[in-house]
C-alpha cells in the first residue's frame, strides 16, 4: 500500500479535530495544533477506526508531525499485510 492515500486520510482526521479552520500540512507538529494529550489519544482511536487496525499508545512516541503519524499507520498496515 502506498503512503499517499494513508497520508491524505490521516491529514483529514487531524484536520477534523484541530480547533482552527483550514487544511493541516503533513509537516505540522501535532502538539502545536491545539490538541491536548487526551485529544491526541482520541485522534489515535479515530485512526484505528479509519484503518481498522490497532495503534498501540506507546507508538505515539514516534509521532511529532502529521506525516509521522501517517508513517506509523503505513508501517502497521504493511506489517499486517506481511503477516497474513
Amino acid at each position, binding site marked *: 500500500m502506498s503512503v499517499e492515500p494513508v497520508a491524505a486520510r490521516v491529514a483529514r482526521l487531524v484536520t477534523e479535530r484541530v480547533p482552527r479552520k483550514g487544511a493541516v500540512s503533513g509537516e505540522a507538529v501535532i502538539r502545536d495544533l491545539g490538541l491536548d494529550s487526551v485529544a491526541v489519544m482520541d485522534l489515535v482511536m479515530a485512526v484505528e477506526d479509519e484503518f481498522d487496525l*490497532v495503534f498501540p499508545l506507546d507508538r505515539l512516541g514516534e509521532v511529532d508531525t502529521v506525516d509521522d503519524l501517517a508513517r506509523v499507520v503505513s508501517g502497521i498496515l504493511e506489517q499486517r499485510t506481511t503477516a497474513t
Partner: protein
Amino acid sequence: MNLLHHLRPLREALAGLVESNPFDVRFDAILSPTEGVLRGRPVLLLGTNNYLGLTFDRTCVDAAAAALAGEGTGTTGSRIANGTYGGHDELEARLAAFLGRRQAMVFTTGYQANLGMLSSLVGPGDHIVIDADSHASIYDGVRLSPASVTRFRHNDPDDLARRLARLPPTGNTLIVVEGIYSMLGDRAPLAEIAALKREHGAHLLVDEAHSLGVLGAHGRGLAEEAGAEADVDFVVGTFSKSLGAVGGFCASDMEGFELLRLACRPYMFTASLPPSVIASVTAALDRMVAVPELRARLMDNARHLHASLVEAGFQLGAEPAPILSIRVPDAGTAIAFWNRLVERGVYINLALPPATPRGICLLRSSVSAAHEPAQLEAAARTIAEVGAELGVVGRPRRAVSG
C-alpha cells in the same frame, strides 16, 4: 533555557489564578468529615471523596492511635527489605475475605496499586485495553507495561468489542475499567463488558476506587452490584476514599498472584504503609461491614443532592451517585463559580481539561454519609444561587427544596 521550559504552557495557564488558585487550596483546619476552615471561613466539605465519613470515626482513630503508640510512626522501608508486620498480613487476609478472593496485596497508595498491577500483570506480546476515561494512575500504569495498549470509547461495549476483535490472536488480553468514574460519577456497563471478556478469553481488572463501600449489597463495589464478580479477575481499590485513610490494594483468585510481590516494582521499591494507617483501615473495613446504614445514608444523600441540583436546572454528568458533577460552559466560568462557592462556604472540586473527558469543565462534588440533609440543602441553595448569577442556570422559580 530554563530547566522547566517544557512546563511553560502550565505556567501561563496558572498566571491568571495568582490571587486564588483552586489547585492550591490550603485549609486552616479540618474539623470533621464535613466541615473545615478555609481562608478564615467555615466551609462545608463537599469534595473530599470521604464517602462513608470515617475519617473521624472513633474506632478508626483509636485503632490508629494504639498502633502508633505500640509500633511506632513508620516501617522505614519496603516489605521486601524491612519485612511484613502482622497488621499488613491481617489487613490483606481481611480484604481477601471481604471480597471473596484467595489473595490480596496492599500498596502504599491507590495510585501505586494501579501502577503496580498494570505494569506487572501482563508481559511482552500481551494486550491491555483500557476505557478512554480511565484515571491517570491507569494511564501511568499501562505506560510502564511491556504490553501493547489501546483504548476504547468510554463505557461503550460495542466499541470495546470492535477493538478486541482487531487484536492479534496471540498474547493475553487484559481489559481495564472502573467501577465509578471519578470525574462524572458514571458506572461501567460491567455485565456487557464481562460478557465480552468471556467471549474473547480476556482477563478483566476493575478499579473500584470510588465504588468500594459504596455500591453492592455488601459494599464490594460495582462488580457485586452488577452480579459480575465471577468475571472480575483483579479487583483494585484504594483506602483513601470510603476507608478514610491512604493506601491501595489488589485482590484476586489468580494462581501465582503471590509472585507479583517479587515482580511488582511499585510494591517492592517503596516504604510499606505505617502501622497506624493499617490499623485505621482495618478498623474502617470492619465499620463498613458492620454498619451498612452508612452506605444507605450515602446513597440517600446522593439522591437528595442530585434531585436538588437537577431541579435547579443544572446539567449533571450522570445518574445519582456519590460523585455529582455539574457541567459548566468554560474554564473561566468554572473558576469563578468555584471561587464564589468557597467565599460562601461550600468547598467542591474544580476539574478542567485535560483532567476531564472530552474537554468539558466540571464542578465536581462528592457526597458523604456524614452529611446532614440540612447541610446538603444549604449547599444546593448556594450552588443554585451562584449558578444563576453566572448564567449557568436560570434564576430558580422557587427555592431549591430538600
